[in-house]
């Protein structure tokens, strides 16, 4: 099984024949090298595992934070928007309406923040050892899934609670659409990672990015139907345009899959296409900039 890998990157893990690695200056856009990424999957696993392990180290409450954050947000939003502002919530209790959107949103915002800063915080790795750099933002984006899973338990509890109260207007509905929930989470991941690939690569050279992210997530939150229903936008055309924000599709999809609200419709398609476009362009941009990381970081 003689394999000669022509382009720059190649594996360190195959055994029989010594692999041939050729190093030479690359020009312009470079291939994504998924094969190499696959060979380094264990490193991806270990870096994600590390992020999960250290997240709540030296905190008193530990993993409780994963629940406290979204629950506190939900309480505040329910109080101000649900109670005081009487925000419509598609006929279901505002807390659960809001919380079901906060879960994917918080996952997205956290992944975006960590992943965009990931290269800079891992500069010691980048200047000292070789591996496909894509692993760094990907592992940062993945590690938030554990928090998501913990916070999700609370959502299940809320669903059971409101279901047992006939006056709440909420009813558990079982159906195949529940199975689509992971697909919407994946869409949130793809969006977060897509944006982070751009931002993390830019962050290596321009540290301004670090200060841009908080604003970005704040504006993005208001552009996403987390505290309000997307039905506020009534015109079907503008609803579809609304879907240009991929998180609209994610949040609406979540509510639909879990709470049985209105299905997202064509905006879902728009959101998916936009998310994938950001992701793929991010991959290529990242790969193009990758070779300069060790020199500039």
């Amino acid at each position, binding site marked *: 099984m003689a394999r000669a890998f022509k382009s*720059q*990157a190649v594996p*360190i*893990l195959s055994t029989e*024949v*010594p*692999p*041939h*690695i*050729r*190093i*030479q*200056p*690359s020009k*312009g856009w470079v291939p994504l090298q998924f094969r190499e990424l696959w060979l380094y999957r*264990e*490193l991806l*696993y*270990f*870096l994600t*595992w*590390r992020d999960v*392990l*250290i997240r709540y*180290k*030296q905190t008193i409450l530990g993993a409780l934070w994963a629940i406290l954050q979204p629950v506190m947000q939900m309480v505040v939003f329910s109080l101000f928007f649900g109670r005081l502002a009487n925000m419509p919530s598609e006929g279901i209790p505002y807390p659960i309406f809001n919380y079901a959107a906060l879960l994917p949103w918080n996952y997205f915002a956290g992944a975006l923040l960590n992943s965009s800063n990931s290269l800079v915080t891992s500069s*010691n*790795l*980048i*200047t*000292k*050892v*070789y*591996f496909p750099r894509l692993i760094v933002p990907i592992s940062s984006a993945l590690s938030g899934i554990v928090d998501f899973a913990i916070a999700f338990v609370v959502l299940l509890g809320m669903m059971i609670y409101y279901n047992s109260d006939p006056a709440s207007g909420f009813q558990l509905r079982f159906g195949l659409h529940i199975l689509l929930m992971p697909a919407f989470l994946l869409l949130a991941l793809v969006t977060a990672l897509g944006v982070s690939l751009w931002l993390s690569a*830019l962050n*290596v*050279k*321009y*540290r*301004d990015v670090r200060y841009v992210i908080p604003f970005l997530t704040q504006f993005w939150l208001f552009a996403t139907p987390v505290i309000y229903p997307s039905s506020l936008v009534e015109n079907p055309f503008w609803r579809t345009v609304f879907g240009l924000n991929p998180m609209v599709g994610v949040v609406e999809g979540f509510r639909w899959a879990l709470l049985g609200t209105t299905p997202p419709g064509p905006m879902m398609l728009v959101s998916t296409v936009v998310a994938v476009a950001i992701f793929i362009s991010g991959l290529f*941009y990242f790969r*193009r*900039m990758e*070779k*300069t990381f*060790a*020199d*500039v*970081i």
Partner: protein
Amino acid sequence: MTDIAIRAENLSKKYHIIPERKPRYRTLRDQIANGIIRLPARAMRGMGKARSGEDDNARFGRDYIWALRNVSFEIKRGEIVGLIGRNGAGKSTLLKVLTRITEPTKGVVDLFGRVGSLLEVGTGFHKELTGRENVYLNGAILGMRKVEIDRKFDEIVAFAEVEKFINTPVKFYSSGMTVRLAFAVAAHLEPEILLVDEVLAVGDASFQRKSLSKMEDVGKHGRTVIFVSHHMPSITRLCERAYLLEGGEIIRTGPAHEVVAEYLSTNLGTSSSKCWEDLRRAPGDETVRLRGVRVKNQQGETAYTHDIRRPIGIEMEYEVLTSGTVLVPYFTLHNEEEVWLFTSIDTDPQWRSRPRPAGRYTSTAWIPGNLLAEGTLLAAAGIRTEEPHINHFYEQDVVAFQVVESPDRDTARMEWAGKISGVIRPFLTWETDLSR
């Protein structure tokens, strides 16, 4: 299958230096000053611009350096090659290019085999994680697979001597323990090509000894190693060949001890011989003047490098200008750390207490083999008269030479692999009796 492990052709690497007062990374403010409209385009072009360097050069003038210039070499499978040179000579850059951490600006490298690198001990160690967790994390970062780490785990922990604390967070470790654990992981890396930067200088003396012998094992298993170090004795001991880098170029290659000798002699500015053509300017007085000093081997050849087992001759040539004075030539010997090893006074009975007629003399002091420890030594030469006391001259650091250990096991080192302390290393006769 080719027997070449690493082949580099015309490898060059250009680095941009952004002037001191500017941060290494840029802020958007700088960019805005250069025109907001061009911003996205500039960000996109990224490295393209950096490679051509035109924009930056126009603005800052000459702000790049070639860290490597047209470096070409071939290393065979199983060779251990040392890379030496002053700071900034390009050693680390070369390693970073070979490990693919950074891309060359020009040139091609072919690597045949799995590559492992060790540019730093404990890359990716996290202080909040336990020793066990760090072993897995660090192993994965260095390119080991989980099954491989599972298999070697006990060995790694035993090597690091941290068995009792393996489930304790590393932040509670002493710095020595952390470094030992980190080195232990790295030492169990088994790639076909290993690239190592100055990492053996960690831990206490006994751990360094262990590390060095581990490195020797690596060599014995037929792996190809490039080894960067400032510690010359470990270069000569571990490597067959060495490359001397200066200003980003390989200026000398050859057997490790020769290259090391050249590096040291150029660095010290002292070579193995020195002579004074113009006698009037030579050290001395109206009685006697020094013509020259050299270090020679048994064959009488001037040599810088000497096998630790062979005698070394230090020879001085001098001109006695006025007859009738008793002269006592002597040498003193110092090592690199400026430890004064000894003073040796002419013991030749022929001229003892005997006034010398004018003429040219040559006196040689023979240092027996198996006496000096390996390392670089500096000699001083002098001539005195005792009655009345006159120091005709005493020329310090006049010649230098190097004592090298051979890899054969018949020196005073025997099977000992690590550092041997002490300024001399005599080969003593030992007797061991079994008394019961």
